[in-house]
């Protein structure tokens, strides 16, 4: 069987972002595995290799999950398929 090289990776089933594992174009349909489920996301931005995009709409103030952990908080509403980077997320207030 010839397997197509995957475009993005989700590291934990709780995550609401995926990481591109090659440069992806705006409008591209990307299929990713979230746990045992397959999810298809249409990209609203070009996503450079190793950058992230939203798997779901993330409202302003909501937590951003990668590795199953909170890596940041949304600074504004982020749409499914949007580039998730320092322009729209930032370090959460550390509770520790």
């Amino acid at each position, binding site marked *: 069987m010839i*397997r*197509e*090289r*995957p475009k993005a*990776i989700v*590291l934990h089933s709780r995550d609401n972002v995926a*990481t*591109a*594992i090659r440069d992806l174009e705006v409008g591209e349909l990307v299929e990713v595995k979230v746990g045992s489920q397959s999810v298809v996301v249409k990209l609203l931005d070009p996503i*450079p*290799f*190793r*950058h*992230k995009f939203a798997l779901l709409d993330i409202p302003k103030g909501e937590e951003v999950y*990668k*590795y*199953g*952990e*909170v*890596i*940041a908080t949304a600074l504004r509403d982020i749409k499914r398929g949007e580039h*998730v*980077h*320092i322009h729209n*997320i*930032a*370090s*959460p207030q*550390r*509770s*520790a």
Partner: protein
Amino acid sequence: MSVRELFGYLRSDGRIGFRNHILVLPTVVCANQVCQDIAHLVRGSVALPYHGGCGLLPADKELVTRCLCHVAANPNVAGVVVVSLGCESVDAVELTEGIADFGKPVELIQIEKLGGTLEATCRGARAALRMVLEASRLKREKVGLDSLMLGLECGGSDPASGLTANPVLGYATDRIVEAGGGAIITETTESIGAEHVLARRAVSTRVGEKMLEIVRRYEERVRQFGADIREGQPVPGNIEAGLTTAEEKSLGCVLKAGSSPLVEVVEFAVIPNQKGLVVMDTPGFDPISMGGLLAGGCQVICFTTGRGSPSGVPIAPVIKISSNSECFQIMNEHIDFNAGTVIDGEEKIEQAGERLLDLIIEVANGAATKAEALGHNLFGVWTHMQL
């Protein structure tokens, strides 16, 4: 999946060795040359040169003595020749007695008492020869996966490390911990930003608080020199490569430790009381953090890298894991395992993790790593100040 059987050397303190080295251990930098000469004369003995052992604050003297003693007590070591100058800060007699308390054959050679390098080398080589011959008669016996204490390390990381090599190692770590074995993760500096995640995974409030404390203490120490360790993280190169926050960067690093509960947080070079996942307070500097792993009793070290560090330690095999296939090709003579397959789409994290677990067992059973075959020999001891 292959049958995962482990064979190791039963040591008198109950721990299991997966190598059978005779260690030639200097108490002080001035004894390094004699140690190296002895190790050169006697095959099967290995010197552990390091830069320290004198001009120490009392607290550092204790730290160095503990580290040397516990490294000598590492189950991969079958016997020890301690080489002392005679006027150093480290108390060679106390160190030798400490090693003997672990039930390990040990002999002390004192350079000043013997009149210099030549006599000390000759006496030390005779002791090493006797120990090598004795150790060579020991046989490996079948042991459980629970006898394994894995060291977790990274160096020359790249942005793929958090996507491939570290989660793949984390998968293997979880399997070893599930089987009753242990793993130690070091480098307090690299966990900053993710310390609350490790603390939350602690088995008790006390362990969780200790995790947060070692980070606070480290920050404070750095602040004494006018620097802020959190400032500027992630660096611009990280951001360009897709990282957004210090949390994201550090989480990518502590993934090496998998998802097991944190059972213990230990000071530098302390032997953990518990099996399971352990944090040891060390700096991020590889010779010292790996020195801590040896002292903690790790018999095998897994080292993830994106650039391809050549480093190895004298008494334990270091399995080098590349985060990307380019590194695996370019630095192939140093890399034992490629986790870049995960972003190449050839394997899932779990598949690569199973393959890594097979390699860890093969190496524990005696297969040489590239760092071992090339004789890479890094070792350092943490001190706060050199007087």
